[in-house]
């Protein structure tokens, strides 16, 4: 109970933060919807039951992910929702990823991720448009396209077979226009890009050539933000910004701008017989409270309720399916300005910042773990290393002995942190600036998370921050996020969740990475050892050896502390109505990239429908 004072302070902060958040329209309503549950730290009504009894109860109500494929009846339209409209419908040339979301329903890719049946997916790759492949040499990948793939029965394609020329066309368009092109393509201004070329050797064969053995290539080809295969007729034959021509499992049958998307089963898809539902309707509901109301009224079948809301919704509607989510692979960062006079050039100052963080409290505050615990919900808490704790098989637990010397920097130790600061020349603490955005681009909770991190770093006077809240598009992104260390003080921000860890490591931690925050302007403070370790793992084709190399890098980064990772995470929970057959049974590796594997397996169980 030694933590009581500190803990209570944090809970008070939590209440204050909740009050702040209630100023926004959507979240204000959440508090009201959830008011039945109160804001008690013990999770509300205890009902006189012990924690053990509650745990047993929750065990019995947790969704068991029953595979009902054998009972599946074809038909029905899924009532879903989405929160945002798209900029346009061209996934290879849109300035926004939103186009890739639509594209993931209609345009196929060469490979796809293997889903996990009732268990989390592992990121393995399997055939999609390419039915097989071979690697005759480490820098060449030859893919054979399936012969029975055709485009939608709509002019000007009219069921034309999908061929290698479509792939090459799409690659060229991706390399020229995609905003993600630098992640994959070697260009004059992007010499570290792995892929040199993509060529067709016959109607059904394409060859990718890389400048070095690139281990994650097959995985990259499965990612919906990269190479979606579009018909070459999209160049003049139809307007790809406003229309689609499907070669994948669904067609975009109706799109009303700002209103809704309607996808329908593509009868010409090579595996159309495996799709149970006739389609998906997604009205655009940007307001959380409106979405929650639609879910509660059963007009929306599944809803991304905030973790604060999950317990109350389950109590209000015991019929709801409650599923425990796998750990996510997101690891946001506290990072540092590295200008010539920056104190953060000294690793001891960065280590001190890392040691100020009370990770357990932070995870509890934002992961709702106290309430979950009080209600008997099962969950695991993990600290992030410099990669997310959701990277199963690659992540090194900072609390374990495997992390070695770096482990101490992930444990809160204010006294030791102050010693490090003192040794670095700041015996009275370090006064500087701290930046984060307060607009909604990273979600409504993010500013609160940043504020709590700031508060933790300021404890005992170790750091004294002047808060700067930059404009997202015109200041934060240009000067801070993409600033390559050319700003003053500390910044807190999101990172992209890539489906392959290499893309994350290279983008953020390699001195030449597109989003790197570790080498000033990419030239000064270059950590050659870290760069070499990152380059080596991407060239290693043996999965086990590569995993070890990634673990070794984490241990190295844990000591150097180029950035301070977000504290960690706990399991979260999802809710859905019980008439979604096979809900959460096929586990996606990347939700957006796995439509063809997950959405095709869901079915409408009319016998359970009460809407």
């Amino acid at each position: 109970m030694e933590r009581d004072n500190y803990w209570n302070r944090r809970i008070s902060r939590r209440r204050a933060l909740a009050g702040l958040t209630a100023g926004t329209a959507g979240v204000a309503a959440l508090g009201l919807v959830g008011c039945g549950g109160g804001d008690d730290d013990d999770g509300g009504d205890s009902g006189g039951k012990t924690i053990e009894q509650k745990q047993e109860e929750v065990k019995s109500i947790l969704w068991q992910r029953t595979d009902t494929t054998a009972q599946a009846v074809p038909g029905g339209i899924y009532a879903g929702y989405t929160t945002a409209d798209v900029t346009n419908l061209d996934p290879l040339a849109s300035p926004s990823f939103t186009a890739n979301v639509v594209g993931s329903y209609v345009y196929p890719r060469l490979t796809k991720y293997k889903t996990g049946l009732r268990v989390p997916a592992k990121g393995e790759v399997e055939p999609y448009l390419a039915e097989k492949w071979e690697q005759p040499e480490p820098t060449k990948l030859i893919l054979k396209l399936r012969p029975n793939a055709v485009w939608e029965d709509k002019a000007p394609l009219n069921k034309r077979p999908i061929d290698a020329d479509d792939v090459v066309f799409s690659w060229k368009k991706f390399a020229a226009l995609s905003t993600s092109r630098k992640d994959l393509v070697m260009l004059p201004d992007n010499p570290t890009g792995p892929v040199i070329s993509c060529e067709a050797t016959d109607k059904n064969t394409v060859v990718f050539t890389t400048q070095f053995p690139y281990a994650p290539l097959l995985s990259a080809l499965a990612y919906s933000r990269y190479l979606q295969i579009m018909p070459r007729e999209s160049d003049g034959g139809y307007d790809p910004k406003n229309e689609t021509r499907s070669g994948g499992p669904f067609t975009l049958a109706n799109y009303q701008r700002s209103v809704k998307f309607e996808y329908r089963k593509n009868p010409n898809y090579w595996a159309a017989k495996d799709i149970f539902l006739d389609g998906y309707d997604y009205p655009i509901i940007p307001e959380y409270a409106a979405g929650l109301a639609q879910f509660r009224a059963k007009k929306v079948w599944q809803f991304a309720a905030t973790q604060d809301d999950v317990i109350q919704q389950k109590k209000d509607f015991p019929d709801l399916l409650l599923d425990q989510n796998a750990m996510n692979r997101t690891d946001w960062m506290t990072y540092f300005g590295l200008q010539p006079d920056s104190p953060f050039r000294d690793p001891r100052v960065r280590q001190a910042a890392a040691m100020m963080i009370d990770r357990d409290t932070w995870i509890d505050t934002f992961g709702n773990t106290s309430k979950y615990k009080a209600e008997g919900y099962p969950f695991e808490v993990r600290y992030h290393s410099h990669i997310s704790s959701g990277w199963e098989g690659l992540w090194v637990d900072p609390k374990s002995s495997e992390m070695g010397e770096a482990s101490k920097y992930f444990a809160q130790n204010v006294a030791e942190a102050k010693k490090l600061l003192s040794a670095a020349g700041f015996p009275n603490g370090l006064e500087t600036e701290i930046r984060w955005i307060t607009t909604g681009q990273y979600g409504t909770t993010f500013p609160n998370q940043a504020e709590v991190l700031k508060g933790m770093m300021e404890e005992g006077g170790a750091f004294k921050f002047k808060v700067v809240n930059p404009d997202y598009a015109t200041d934060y992104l240009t000067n801070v996020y993409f600033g390559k260390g050319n700003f003053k003080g500390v910044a807190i921000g999101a990172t992209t969740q890539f489906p392959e860890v290499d893309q994350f490591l290279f983008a953020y931690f390699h001195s030449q990475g597109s989003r790197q925050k570790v080498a000033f302007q990419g030239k000064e403070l270059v950590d050659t050892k870290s760069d070499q370790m990152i380059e080596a793992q991407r060239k290693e084709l043996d999965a086990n050896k590569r995993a070890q190399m990634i673990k070794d890098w984490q241990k190295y980064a844990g000591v150097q502390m180029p950035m301070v990772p977000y504290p960690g995470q706990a399991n979260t929970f999802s809710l859905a109505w019980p008439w979604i057959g096979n809900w959460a049974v096929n586990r996606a590796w990347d939700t957006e990239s796995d439509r063809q594997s997950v959405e095709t397996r869901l079915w409408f169980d009319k016998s359970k429908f009460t809407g």
Partner: protein
Amino acid sequence: MARYVTQRLLLAALTIWLVSIIVFTLLRVVVPIFYGDAVDVIAAEYSHSDPARAEALREEYGLSGNLVVSYLEWAGNMARGNLGESLFNGRPITKEMHDRLPVSVELGVIGLLSGLLFSVPLGVAAAVAQDRWPDYFLRTFAILLNSLPGFWLAILIITFGNKWFNWAPPLNFAYLTEDPVAHLKIMLLPALLIGLTPSAGLVRLVRTQMLEVLRQDYIRTAHAKGLSDRTVIIRHALRNSLIPVVTVVGLTLPTLIAGTAIFESIFTLPGMGRYLVSSVSSLDYPVIMGTVFVFSVIIVLANLAVDLSYTVLDPRIRY
């Protein structure tokens, strides 16, 4: 009268021209200086600071040309009713407006009408019962209503409507011409809510004007002639107290039409507000310029209509 109307029309045209220069200058000159242009936003967020791609986009979007020529082209197109195309999806803005403007106008008009139906009787009632409890109650109620944002009320209605009655607003938008019943079902609540906040101000305005008119000699004369209170209030007092109300109403309508974005988001309506807000966040400048310009024209025309309506409401007014 004809001269006055002609003068007003010329003044309106001049105002619109000046607005076009201001809108163009702000978006194509001032905003890029301080915040960057649309390509900067794209390049920063998605293009990983890719100068080559950024330059190509700038060329494609027509952001690198001569500003005077660009203005003349844009203004010329505007004059011909061509508002241009969105930078990001290439859709004609005129087409988008054709689909969306009626939704926003309908929201604004229904909101205003419902607000008037609500506020005029209450304002009259408060004036007639001056300094008695109905007056105190109505004034307090009006202040309360004026201080509650409409979107907050909307969230409360959705939240508690759902909690208590398992109700949620309709999801599938239908145009009036397609399905009038479904259309009204989805439009009515947001329209009523939009009208609620301004109606609170109108209650107080009507009350004040009524009190002023009720003290006039001709009202005393009307009473002395033996007319009933009802006739005096409705025929003589109300009509004369409405002139400033018409001014406020006329100027409120375009504000209501332009300010529907939050309600459109909450009730998933495809109106102009959402269109404008989404284009602002991406600095889709042709859309911003087009919509701001159209809103400006609506406001100028509303002002014109208000001025002209005075002659109808008060025959003593001559120009």
